[in-house]
């Protein structure tokens, strides 16, 4: 009892072959499209690589790029098979590759599904990575004279301006870090000495933020220093002032940005998976219909196309028996090898 059997007269077989040829080229194009999306995601992740602690999230664009390249190959192969399918002399040479092709396509589809699942599952890891990366960035903000860290200031400033964010969680992260280098502090001044002495680690901490935290939407000129002191500025109350600085933290801003990017890529990947499955199912029907037609006396007669020759349970049973026979054969071979080796050992 075949699974989903359909009748295929000659005309329908021809139509199926033509439609599938077009569909396989469409699938090639969509594979190329997914490759471009993967490259775009990777470049966006690399752009902010300096504020990421690890590169675990890169597995998503890497999978997308590899799978899309492989899918271009498999769909091109499907197109070639379609072209030859209606010619009884040329079709048989593709026959033995088709089983392997179905396995490869199943693997590719599952990898794509994995990529989509990972893009959501790795969100927590991404956030952790950004937390550590941003913390280091803020800590080394002042080290513009230390090789290896001299561009942290520019990176963090540019990040805060472009993403309209301030600090790791919010602007108060800057209060806990000395972001003004000692090179620019006058250690003969009383004020500086007092502040440094009042801190346990001898750091110069201020309730101030760098200029890149300033929000251009604010109606008043930006207040960067003495942010928690209402008396330091005229007509200022830090509890109610919301527009002076960016209120969002850079970690949240980056996570939102990347999640939005992956959310837009997600539907594209799912539609490519659907296209690939459609190609696979159509090719299976074409294969069985053409093979059925070739087995008939008159190759132009109607033939049957199906997904599985027997129903699902019987097919699984068949596969189990196949592997069991394979295992048995291997075992017998191994036992006979052992027996031979034992004989040789006793003989010598």
């Amino acid at each position, binding site marked *: 009892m075949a699974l989903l059997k359909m009748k295929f007269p000659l005309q329908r077989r021809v139509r199926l072959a033509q439609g599938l040829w077009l569909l396989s080229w469409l699938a090639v194009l969509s594979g190329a499209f997914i490759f471009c999306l993967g490259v775009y995601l990777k470049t966006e992740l690399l752009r902010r690589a300096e504020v990421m602690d690890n590169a675990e999230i890169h597995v998503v664009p890497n999978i997308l790029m590899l799978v899309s390249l492989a899918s271009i190959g498999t769909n091109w192969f499907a197109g070639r098979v379609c072209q030859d399918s209606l010619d009884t002399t040329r079709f048989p040479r593709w026959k033995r590759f088709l089983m392997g092709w179905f396995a490869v396509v199943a693997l590719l589809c599952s990898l794509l599904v994995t990529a989509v699942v990972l893009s959501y599952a790795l969100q927590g890891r991404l956030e952790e990575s950004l937390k550590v990366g941003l913390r280091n960035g803020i800590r080394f903000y002042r080290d*513009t004279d230390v090789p290896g860290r001299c561009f942290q*200031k520019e990176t963090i400033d540019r990040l805060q301006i472009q993403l309209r964010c301030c600090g790791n969680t919010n602007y108060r992260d800057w209060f806990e870090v000395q972001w003004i280098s000692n*090179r*620019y502090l*006058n250690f003969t001044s009383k004020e500086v000495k007092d502040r440094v002495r009042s801190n346990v680690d001898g750091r110069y901490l201020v309730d101030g933020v760098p*200029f890149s935290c300033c929000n251009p939407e604010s109606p*008043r000129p930006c207040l960067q220093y003495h942010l928690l002191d209402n008396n330091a500025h005229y007509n200022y109350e830090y509890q109610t002032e919301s527009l002076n600085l960016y209120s969002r933290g850079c970690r949240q801003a980056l996570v939102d940005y990347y999640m939005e990017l992956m959310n837009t890529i997600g539907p594209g990947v799912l539609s490519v998976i659907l296209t690939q499955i459609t190609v696979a199912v159509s090719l299976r029907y074409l294969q069985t219909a053409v093979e059925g037609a070739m087995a008939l006396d008159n190759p132009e007669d109607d033939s049957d196309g199906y997904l599985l020759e027997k129903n699902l349970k019987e097919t699984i049973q068949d596969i189990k028996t196949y592997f069991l026979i394979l295992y048995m054969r291997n075992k017998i071979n191994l036992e006979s090898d052992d027996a031979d080796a034992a004989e040789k050992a006793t003989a010598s």
Partner: protein
Amino acid sequence: MAVGKVTFTKAERDKLAQVLWLLNWISVVTGVILFSLGLFLKVEIQKRREVMSDQDILYVPHMLITTGLVACCINFLGGKICYDSVDTTKFLRWKLVILPYIVCTFFFTFCVLVGALTCYSIRNQLEESLFLGLRNAMRYYKDTDMAGRCFLKRSMDLLQIQFQCCGNGGYRDWFHIQWISNRYLDMTSSTVVDRLRSNVKGKYLMDGVPFSCCSTFSPRPCIQLQVTNNSAHFNYNHQTEQLNLWRRGCHQALLDHYTGIMQSIGLIVLVIWLFELLVLTGVRYLQTAMENVLLLGDPDSESDGWILENSLAETARSNFNIIKNLGKCYQVDDDPNINIPTATEREVPSRQVQIPVAS
């Protein structure tokens, strides 16, 4: 003595018609490109309309947009004409239209050239407009509570951040303007009152700049206030400090930005103009060749094609005479063929028609 005479066999004429059909369709695409270039330029100018004092330079993108649309229509018609020129019977349909079409297209390509040249000549007008626009934007920077000016602060800040520039000609322009609103000045404080009194117009001027002038490339935290006072900051010398603020003025930055865009657009439009001229020459050759074939009577024979039938001087003279004679259209001259009615003419008897009445 024809200008640029070339002899065409039937096969060559057909080939020419087919090639011109293809070129006309490519010209439709270039017309679309012209249209989109005009649209792009318009959007770019509109984006920064707040720092431009007048929007007169919008005539350049408007011209490009109309030229692009007209190019699409003209080349579409040209494609149709060339498609029909393969068959002499179908060509007869277009016989009356084709010469005016060529003349119109010739003037149209002239418009395209003018469009390309205006892109290069716009610089002076743009310079003036940007200077005044930026000066006003800086003057009204503090007026975030006034309707119509409340977004100038944001626009100016975003402009300075994006283009990495400060002020009109340089950062010192901010020293001559009160950019901190009185709402945020403590009028009871003696420093504020002293500063206001020391200024003739009662403006609060200071040697400070807004935060958007700060350079991201500076190794030290930004110094915005008391920029020219070396003793106000530790280890600071404003004459040698290069990286603290953006050095370039926004006037220069915007001018460079727009001039760059206009020059690239101008170059593309020039290339399109040359292409249109090529297509026009081909259509002219096709027209003259087809008309000569019709005159000869045999559709398969060879015919001549040219750009001008007589030399340039003779054509100019004959056209001038035509224009002169057009002016004499309504004057009475001694042409013996014109019938002037006189009193000696016999009257034509009128016939009387009897209508029979049925009884």
